[in-house]
């Protein structure tokens, strides 16, 4: 018999061993992922403080790096809500610690991003991370930390407190990491540009290792309404969630339990459901056995009368902001934007926003340019696997008088409390039928609006063309007819030309 050694590994250890699933596959991808995670944390932090974000990113080459592989110093500053002193070490030094477990729309899916970047920096350079943060109180906290990977705990190397004279609020993080900026550069710049597009109220500044400054300036200070926190919807829960709810509930009967912990469950619905599930109303949830809990979840899923989740936990960008972002970053000649009504998949509400930008600085590529966004972050990799990409491919564009050789960019923004990503890398959205349908309808709606614009423009062009054709040829006909007839003076054709100008498309065969 072979004896096997079992060991328990910490979440930090798990991600250390499997860092590719979080996007840290290779040096160029890692540097992109690190910037992306930290920028998104910063944007979230500013939005929860309800101030237009100011994000500053700088990447500098570290002199001590080995020549074959460069190491960089990455610094990200924001004007966000800041982190309370006692949470600072965990926020960046403990995997799966974060503020994103409650149900509301946020950019990340779990507290992996910031820490993952720091973890990656530590395992490639073995240097501590430096964090400065203040919630705008009288003090500013400075930490120097490393991560104990096996225990998934931060190690605090230094802690300092400064007086916050200027009432500064925000977070600064600075750490070292290995990477390949020059290969990652196109993606990073594209990422920042698209982020600026979908966050038109943010100032984003980036200084790259060559000292080049990239500045994306806000065009508005208006921000979308912040999302509200919400209870889980019955259709969205699993056995584990229900177990945890039971552990913390103060309720001692099932009616109250259903009403208190689930989204849009009223007394009436709760009673109806309990009757349907054949569970006594007075049953104490705390006393339910494992089998009972499994049965409860099964009944929840098969009960059809729960009301659909409300969308006020969502924060779509809105037509005006989407348009502003497109005009500012893509500079098209014309753009149409649409927002679909809220919909749900598996108990998760979502809203699809679409836009089509046409002409101007949008290049002709021979195929449509697709920009994908989820909860206001751009998705740059694995485009061909994305639900939007497939929707576009399957559409009959000829119906909308649109062809691939037009300078056209299509934008799809999905916001949800839970984006149906297919991988932890958060790069593309799965083919859920409900989501696909909304995306398709959204693109169709935008295409219809674009078609209206195009045909109006075509009409104007046609009229212009008509007039120019007539004013080119009529005088020649007059001139040659006159010479042919042997007449002295040409007939007056001005009235004919005027009639062309005023009449519309009356040409007959």
């Amino acid at each position, binding site marked *: 018999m072979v004896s096997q050694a079992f060991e328990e590994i910490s979440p930090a250890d798990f991600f250390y061993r499997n860092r590719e699933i979080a996007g840290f596959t290779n040096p160029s991808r890692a540097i992109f992922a690190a910037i992306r995670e930290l920028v998104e944390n910063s944007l979230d932090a500013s939005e929860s403080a309800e101030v237009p974000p100011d994000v500053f990113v700088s990447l500098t080459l570290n002199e001590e790096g080995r020549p074959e592989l460069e190491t960089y110093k990455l610094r990200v500053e924001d004007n966000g809500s800041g982190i309370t002193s006692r949470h600072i070490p965990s926020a960046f030094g403990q995997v799966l610690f974060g503020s994103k477990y409650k149900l509301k729309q946020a950019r990340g899916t779990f507290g992996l991003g910031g820490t993952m970047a720091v973890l990656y920096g530590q395992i490639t350079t073995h240097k501590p991370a430096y964090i400065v943060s203040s919630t705008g109180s009288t003090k500013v906290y400075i930490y120097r930390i490393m991560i104990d990977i096996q225990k998934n705990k931060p190690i605090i190397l230094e802690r300092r407190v400064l007086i916050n004279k200027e009432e500064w609020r925000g977070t600064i993080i600075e750490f070292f990491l290995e990477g390949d900026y020059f290969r990652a550069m196109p993606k990073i710049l594209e990422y920042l540009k698209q982020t600026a597009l979908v966050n038109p109220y943010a100032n984003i500044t980036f200084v790259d290792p060559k000292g080049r400054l990239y500045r994306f300036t806000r065009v508005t200070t208006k921000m979308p309404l912040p999302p509200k926190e919400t209870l889980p919807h019955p259709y969205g829960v699993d056995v584990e969630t229900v177990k945890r709810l039971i552990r913390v509930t103060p309720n001692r009967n099932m009616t109250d339990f259903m009403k208190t912990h689930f989204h849009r469950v009223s007394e009436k619905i709760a009673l109806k459901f309990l009757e349907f599930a054949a569970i006594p109303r007075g049953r104490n949830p705390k006393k339910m056995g494992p089998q009972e809990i499994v049965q409860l979840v099964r009944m929840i899923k098969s009960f059809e009368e729960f009301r659909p989740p409300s969308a006020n936990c969502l924060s779509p960008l809105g037509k005006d902001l989407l348009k502003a972002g497109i005009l500012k970053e893509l500079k098209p000649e014309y753009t149409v934007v649409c927002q679909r009504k809220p919909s749900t998949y598996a108990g998760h509400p979502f809203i699809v926003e679409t836009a089509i930008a046409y002409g101007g600085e949008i290049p002709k590529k021979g195929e449509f340019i697709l920009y994908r966004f989820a909860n206001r972050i751009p998705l740059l990799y694995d485009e061909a696997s994305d639900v939007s990409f497939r929707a576009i491919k399957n559409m009959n564009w000829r119906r909308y008088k649109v062809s691939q050789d037009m300078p056209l960019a299509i934008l799809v923004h999905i916001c949800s409390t839970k984006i149906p990503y297919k991988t932890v890398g958060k790069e593309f959205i799965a083919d859920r039928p409900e989501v696909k349908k909304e995306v398709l309808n959204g693109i169709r709606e935008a295409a219809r609006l674009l078609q209206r614009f195009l045909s109006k423009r075509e009409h104007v062009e046609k009229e212009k063309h008509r007039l120019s054709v007539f004013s080119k040829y009529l005088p*020649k006909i007059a001139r040659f007819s006159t010479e042919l007839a042997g007449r002295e003076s040409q007939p007056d054709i001005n009235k004919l030309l005027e009639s062309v100008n005023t009449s519309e498309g009356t040409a007959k065969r």
Partner: protein
Amino acid sequence: MKEPRKDNNVSTSEKKDAATDLQSLGEGLYKQMEQGEFPWIKIPSRSTENIYYSPELRQYILGDRKVKRSARNIRHIRPFTQLVWTAFFAHKLSTQRKTSTLRDVYYSAQAYEMSFKDQSESDNIITDLETAIGSAREDFNIFPEERSAVFGDITIEYTVPGYEGRQMNLTSHPDGLMVGPALTYSEFVKTSADKVIAIEKGGLFTRFIEENVHKKHNALLVLTAGQAPRATRHFIHRLNKELELPVYILTDGDPWGMHIAMVIISGSANAAHVRDLTTPDAKWSGVWASDIVDYKLPSVPLTEIDIKRLHELQRDPRYKDDLWQREIKIFMKIRKKAEQEAFSRYGLTYIVDEYLPSKLEETK
């Protein structure tokens, strides 16, 4: 010695008509514009539905259907302007007694900022103009590039500027004379010939001159150089009509050769709007499919395209006569074709000494 019948003269009268017709076309358009109307004209339709074969005239003609071309229509105005310009240009050629080739017309247009996309566009407009005023382009002094020639004892008198009244015998140059504008416009004075032999290929034409076919058979020799140009068809028509000479045609023994003969005899659908190009009494004297068999000529197999062409010809109303139907069937049966040069197998003069006399007799 034969002299032309004056009442059959088809050459000069039509030219004056063409110039007058062009002018009145301009006059009509001018008046329309003077009255505040978009200028327009009506011309016979040249679409295939309006082309009919006339058994009486033994050629294709246009039906009664007409199309209106109006400068009011944005799709018409460009070709309409081109048509008016071409009329203006042709009128100028006629009054100045100059000629121009189709290619010239294409380039001349550019001087008036009237450029055509390509020559086929300008050729097409010229055909429109022919249809509009009912005259062939040669009547308003526009010619294709010449490539065909004529040789034999006929005296002609030039009418072109600088040569008026000068006479010329067409045996004077042993390569033959090019059928160009000057010859087209010339008057026939007299001839000793009693027939016309039209020949498809230059080699045989030269052989016939060398072997004195014109003397031995009292013939005028016309080289068509492949499909006969319209000027040459018109010339053959005049020889037949004005001098009452019978016409015999010698081509290669294949469907394409047959059709060269047929176009001289009955014309083409493309020229359904023009008269005086056909010679309905002309005879196709060979090379027939049956000649390939009878003379045991060296031959090559017919290709797929040849066979396809034979099927087309079999259904063509111009080919309804027995001789044609018979020869088409023989071609299909033997699936072979032969060139005129195939007779060289029996020596260079065999075709002149043996084949030609017998075929002229046979098709008399």
